[in-house]
């Protein structure tokens, strides 16, 4: 009777993939190495896209950041240590890439006026606005407004608070994981998280009150 092999945990599976890729690369079986790496891309792509999008607030920029991070991880897979989860190592690469892009963007924005973006953070062609059978225009507008407020408030957070908040809350990482992803102390991560939440609540409540007052004034003017 064949002995049943216990299923691998995600961390073990990632380590196995990394070992396989390195072996394939060493043997010169590059097609096999890429194919194996494709599994990793599929597994972490959505998560990476979310992180990059919340960080950069621009879909095109986030797309490039994710691609670059996966390429970089593949190129440096030889330096990956199995004692660290792959996603932690990869997230660190991704975040560093995002930070570089933010710095580059700031440098660029000193000289060039930013393009007009829609609420999702991307430039849209008016031809894309095709009527659909989805939610009503009012619902869409309200949802967009809420998202815009939320994303605006998140963007107002200081860089570290934003990073910690996104990884902890949006990505559901524990303080320890965030600590190893960002290189910050675990207690510092918690402090940043609390401050971020407190600040976000303040910002969103203030905006809500402002919005209500503006609505009241508009009605009064009519």
């Amino acid at each position, binding site marked *: 009777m064949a002995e049943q092999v216990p299923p691998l945990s995600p961390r073990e599976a990632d380590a196995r993939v990394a070992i396989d890729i390195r072996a394939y690369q060493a043997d010169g079986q*590059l097609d096999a190495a890429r194919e194996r790496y494709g599994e990793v891309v599929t597994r972490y792509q959505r998560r990476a896209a979310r992180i990059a999008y919340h960080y950069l607030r621009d879909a095109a920029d986030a797309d490039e950041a994710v691609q670059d991070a996966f390429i970089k991880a593949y190129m440096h897979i030889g330096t990956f240590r199995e004692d660290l989860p792959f996603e932690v190592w990869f997230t660190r690469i991704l975040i560093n890439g995002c930070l570089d892009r933010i710095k580059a963007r700031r440098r660029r924005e000193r000289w060039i006026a930013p393009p007009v973006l829609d609420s999702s953070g991307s430039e849209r062609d008016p031809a894309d606005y095709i009527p659909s059978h989805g939610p009503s225009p009012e619902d869409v507008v309200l949802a967009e407004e809420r*998202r815009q407020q939320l994303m605006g408030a998140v963007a107002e957070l200081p860089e570290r608070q934003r990073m910690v908040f996104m990884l902890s809350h949006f990505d559901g990482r524990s303080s320890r994981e965030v600590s190893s992803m960002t290189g910050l102390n675990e207690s510092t991560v918690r402090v940043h998280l609390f401050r971020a939440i407190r600040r976000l609540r303040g910002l969103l409540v203030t905006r809500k009150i402002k919005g209500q007052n503006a609505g009241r004034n508009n009605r009064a003017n009519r």
Partner: protein
Amino acid sequence: MRIADVLFRQGHLSEDALTNAILSGEHPVHLEHCEDCSRRARELGLWLTDMRAEALAAADDAFPPEKLALQQSQIMRRLEQLDAPPRVIAFPAQAVGAPRTNSGRRVAPAWLGVAAAAGLVIGVIGGQVSARFTPEAPIAPAPAQTEQVEPEPNVSTPPVNASLLDYDLERHIPDPLRAYDEGTPTMVQTQYASR
């Protein structure tokens, strides 16, 4: 319970303590018998959940499945390019094949610069010296203006008086039209006649 909560909040939990409880999944004993704090915890939990859902929905809208598929294919294509051996464009066979001869015609680039600079200096000095020792040629007088150039009509010029206009016209009347002109009264004559 923390001392600060006891001292400053009459035993109620702080926002940070509530956040910690929600994020870590803990359930402080205080929440069981304090309706106020448990309500605050519910509100905060709901707010955090809503915000997370909203943020994830925004990211997923920006990256629909088809965009992710495209992204993955782009990543794989880039990896393929990375793994492909670099193509080296060969130099033309003649240039590579021909043995380089040491014919002594090759000039070091540094010497070219030095020679150009020396030439410039010699040229400037030579120019100065020749200008100093060459006797000055007499300046030819400007040719006298024999023909008065007719000024082009300018739209912005103020209106001229009628006698001047007639004078100008008389000077340029072609011979075949002179008979007609003599038969036509001038503006000056017309003005005098009207007085």
